[in-house]
C-alpha cells in the first residue's frame, strides 16, 4: 500500500496501540496481527514484514509485550506475543490519550461543519 507522509506519521503514533490492543485478549503471532489490522481497517491500514517486526521487537524490548515460541503438532513453530502487565498500563493510558485527541478533533471539525 502506498503511504503518504501524513499517513506514515499517523500510523507511527497509533501503531503501538493497535498492536497492544490486538494481543490484549489473547496471544497472537505476527502474521495474525498483520491480517487482523488489514481486515479490521478494511484495507486502510497495512503493515509489511519490514515494519511490523521491528515494531514487535521494540515493544518486546520495552517489556510491553512478551513473545514465546509455540510448536503445534504438524506445524512449524510460531512466535506468539502476549501483552505484559506493563503493556496493559501503557495501552490504557494510550487509549485515554487517543480518546481525548479524537474528541478534540471531532469538536473542531464538527464546529466547522455546523
Amino acid at each position, binding site marked *: 500500500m502506498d503511504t503518504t507522509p501524513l499517513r506514515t506519521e499517523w500510523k507511527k503514533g497509533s501503531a503501538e496501540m493497535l498492536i497492544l490492543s490486538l494481543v490484549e485478549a489473547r496471544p497472537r*503471532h*505476527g*502474521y495474525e496481527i*498483520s491480517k487482523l489490522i488489514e481486515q479490521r481497517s478494511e484495507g486502510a491500514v497495512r503493515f*509489511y*514484514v*519490514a*515494519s511490523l*517486526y*521491528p*515494531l514487535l*521487537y*521494540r515493544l518486546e*524490548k520495552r517489556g510491553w509485550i512478551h513473545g514465546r515460541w509455540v510448536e503445534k503438532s504438524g506445524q*512449524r*513453530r*510460531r*512466535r506468539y506475543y502476549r501483552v505484559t502487565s506493563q503493556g496493559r498500563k501503557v495501552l490504557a493510558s494510550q487509549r485515554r490519550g487517543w480518546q481525548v485527541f479524537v474528541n478534540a478533533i471531532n469538536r473542531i471539525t464538527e464546529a466547522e461543519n455546523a
Partner: protein
Amino acid sequence: MPEWKPEILRRLALLRLGPTREAEIVDELSQHLEDRYQELLSSGQSDDAAFRTSLEELKDEHLLARGLERVEQDASRDPIVPGTARSNAFAGLLQDIRYAFRTLRKSPGFAAVALLTVALGIGANTAIFTVIDSVLLKALPVDHPEQLVLLTNPDEQSRAIGFNDGVRDLLTYPEFQDIAQNNGVFSGVLAASSYTSSIPTAIDGSGESMGAASAEVALVSGSYFSVLGVDPILGRTFGTEVDKLRDANPVAVISYGFWHTRFAGARDVIGRKLRVLRTTYTVVGVTPPQFHGETVGANPEVFVPLSMQTEISPGRDYLSPETNHFSKTEWLQVIGRLKPGVTLAQARAAITVEFQQMMRAETAGMSAHDKQRFMMQTLAVRDGSRGASTLRADFGKPLQILMAVVGLILLIACANIANILLARAAARQKEIAVRVALGAARVRLVRQMLTESVLLAAIGGAIGLLFATWAEVALLRMVSAGSSQVPLNLHPNGNILAFTLGVSVLTGILFGLAPALRATRVDLNSVLKAAGRGFSGTTSRPGRMPIGKVLVVAQVALSLLLLVVAGLFVRSFRNLSRTNLGYDRAHIVQFETNAVTYGYQRADVIPLYSQILERLRAIPGVRGASLSDNGLLSGTDSQDPFTLEGQGKARDDEEVRYDWVGPGFFGASGIPILEGRDIGPQDSGNGQRSGVINETFARKFFSHANPIGQRVTVRDSDGSFDFVIVGVAADSKHASVRENPFPRFYTPFFNPVGKTGPTYATFIVRTFGSPDGVTSSIRAAVKGVAANLPPITTETMNQQLADSLATDRMITELSGAFGALAVILVCIGLYGIMAYAVSSRTSEIGSRMALGAQRQNVLWLILRESLLLVCVGVLIGVPVVFAVGKWISSLLFGVTAADPLAIALAAVLMFLVGIVACYVPARRAMRVDPIVALRYE
C-alpha cells in the same frame, strides 16, 4: 515451497546479529512470508505471482535492517554458544565467564577438589608472602620512608664496648652528634638505642607496686620523631631541646598499645606521671597505632630522650666521649633523612668522608700500628626505607626457603589439577569437536577453557586469602617463639592482594594451558566417527610421552625435593636438640638479675650475690648453685685479646671467649674438670687471680706443655689483667647450640676485673630431680635475701634450648608439613593417572587374561607403570636436590645437604607412594572379567 531464508539473511547481513538471534528472526519472518504465500496461492494466484507478492512484504533492501537496527543493536544478548566467533571481545569474556561458572556448577565434585587444592596452595603462598612482606619488604609506616638512609647495620641489636676494624655495625653517641651537626646531605639525623630494655614501671597514683609490670623502653634522640615524620595521635612528641641537658628531661612518649594496656586508652593520659626504674616521667604524647619504632619486630612501649640514659641504665654512661678510643660504646642505630635532591650515592660519599675525618681526629697520639688499625673502620651507608629489624637476619633465609617450598607445593597442586582437567578434556572431546565443526576458532576455544581455569584459580585464590589469614596467626606465633608477640602488621595490603591475584591468574594459566591446548587439538573425523567409543584422552600422538605422565613425573621430582629438604631439616633439628652441650641440661634452671638497676650499691653486689648463692644451695633437692656473667646458652659472649706468658706476642687475632664464674661453677653446671680444680671460694677477693681454661684452649695454645700454673695476660677495655691457670674443663656450648668449640677461659666472678666490677649475673641452679619442682623455693630464697629485687623469672635449660631453637623448629615443622602435603598430592596425581590407565586398558587386560595371563602378571603390569613413573621422577629429582642443597646448607646442623640417608628415605617414600597410589587401580585391573571386558569392546 519457496526458500525465504536467503532473502531475509541478505537483508539482515548489515546488522551483524548474533547467530542465535539471527536464526530466530529468520525463522519468524520466513513463517510470516510462508503464511502470506499460502494465502495468495489459495486465493488463486500462480506460484510465481504469489512468491513475488510475498517478497514485497520485505520492501526494499534496507528497510528491514533500518527498522531492526535500533532495536537490535544492544539487545542481541545471545544464549551462550561458547567457542563461536564474536566481534566484541569484552562481551565474549563475560560470556566465557558465565559459561565457565555453569560448567563448574555442573561438576561440583571436581570443582570442590580443585578449589580446595588451589585454595590450600595459594593460601600457603599468600601466608608466607605476607610474613615476607612485613619482615623483609615493607617500608616503615612513616613519612616518605624512601628518603631514609641507615648509617648503621639494621640487623644489629647490641651494645659493644671495644673495637672492631672494618665496617661499623653501630655508632657511639659522640659520633652521632658529630654526624648530625656536620653533614650537608641530611635534613635531619636521628639516633635510637639499637635494642629496647624491659624495665620495671609504675603509673603514679594508680597504686601499682614498682616492678609489677615492666615496659620496653627505647632511648631516642630529640630529633627522632621529627626525622621520621611521626605525628602523635595525642599530645606532642619531644624535639631536640631534650638533647641539651643530661638527665634533665624526664618526658616520655608512649606507644598506642601501651596507652591502651596500661592507661586503658584514657584521654587524660597527657600529663600523667610514669615511674620508670627510679625516675618519674611525664607522658607528653601517644604514637599512632601502626608505629612500632624504627626497628621492625621490636615493640618499644615508652620512648624517652637519649639524655636520660644513665637513669634507664644506672651506673653506666654511654653518652660521654671515651678517652680510650679502643673501648668506645657502640650502641646506636643512626638514620638520616636525605635533603631534597640528594641521592643515596651522594650521601654515601659525603658521610664516608665525614666519618674518615672523625676517625682521623681520634688517632692523635696513637702508635703507627694502632693508627693504621683504627683507620680501617668504615661506615656502610644504605637504604633505610625499611628501617632496622630484629627479624630480618634470623628469619630472612628461612622465610625465603619456605616461600620456595610453598611455591613448589603450588606447582605440584597445579600439576594435579592439570591432570584432572586433561581427563575432563578427554570427556569433552566430542563437545569440542562439534564446536570446531560449527566453525569455532581454536584460539577462541583455548580462551574459553583458560577462562574456566583462571576463574577456578581466582575463586581458589579468594578462599586461599581466607586460609592465609588463619595461617598467618600461626606463623606469627612461631616467629614470636614463646616470648611476647612480635608486632608485625600482617593485614592484607596492596602488595599482598596484588601478589595473590598474580599468583591466582598465573596458577590458572599454568594448570589450564596444557589441557586447553591438548583438548582443542582434535581430529574432527576420528572423534566424531568414534561416536561414543572410548578414546585416549591423556595420550597424545603415538611415540611421545603422554602429557599426563609428564606431569606426574614432574610432581614426583618436585616432591622428592621437598621431602629431602624436610628430611634434612628434621635430621638437623634432631642433631640440634640432642647435641651434647657439655653440661647437665636436664637438671639446670637459670635466672638473671641486676642488683645495681634496682638501687643496690656496687660495693654491695658481691656480698648480696654470695648470700643468694648460700640460700640457693640450702634448698632441698638442689645439687649445686653458682653464677656467671653471661650464663649458659643466653646468646651473649665476651671476647678480648690476650697474651700467653713467655710467648710475648698479643693474640688478638685469635677468637678466645671468656666468662666470669662463681665458686663451684663447674660442679654446679656439670661441666667435667679434666685437670686441676674448679673455681672455689678461695678464689674470691683481690689476691692473685686464678682461672680455668677449656680443652680447646689447652690443645691450641699448650699442645705439648702442662697448662696448669701458666700465666695469661688479657687486655680488656679497662687496661689489662692476668690470671694463673688452675684447671682445665671439658668443652661446652655457651652462647649457642650451633657454636663450634672456642678456646675459652673462666676467671672468678668474685675477684672482679676492671674498675666497675660485676653488676649483672646469671644464677645457675642444678637439681637432683626435675628442676621445675624448685622454682618457687628459688624465688622465695631470692626474695628472702634481696627484698628490693623484683620477682625473678626462672627458666630451665630445656626451655632455654627450645627458645633458642624456635626458628629451627618452625622451619622443620613447616617443611615437614609441606612435605607431607606434597606426598598426598603426588599420591592423588598418581592414583588419577593409574586409574585412568586401567580403565582405558580394560579391554587389553581382558584380552591378556583371556589369553592366559595370571592376576600377578596383571598386577605387575600396572605396578610397573606406576613405579616407572616414580623412577623417572626420582632420577630427575636427585640432581635437583644436589643443585639446591647448597642454598639451605647454612641452616643445617650436623648434616650435609647431600645427606644420603635423607635422599634415600625420600626416594623410598616416593616408591611407597607409587605402590600405594596404584593399589586400588591394580586391584580393579586384577578383577577384570575377560568376558565383560571383551564385550565392552
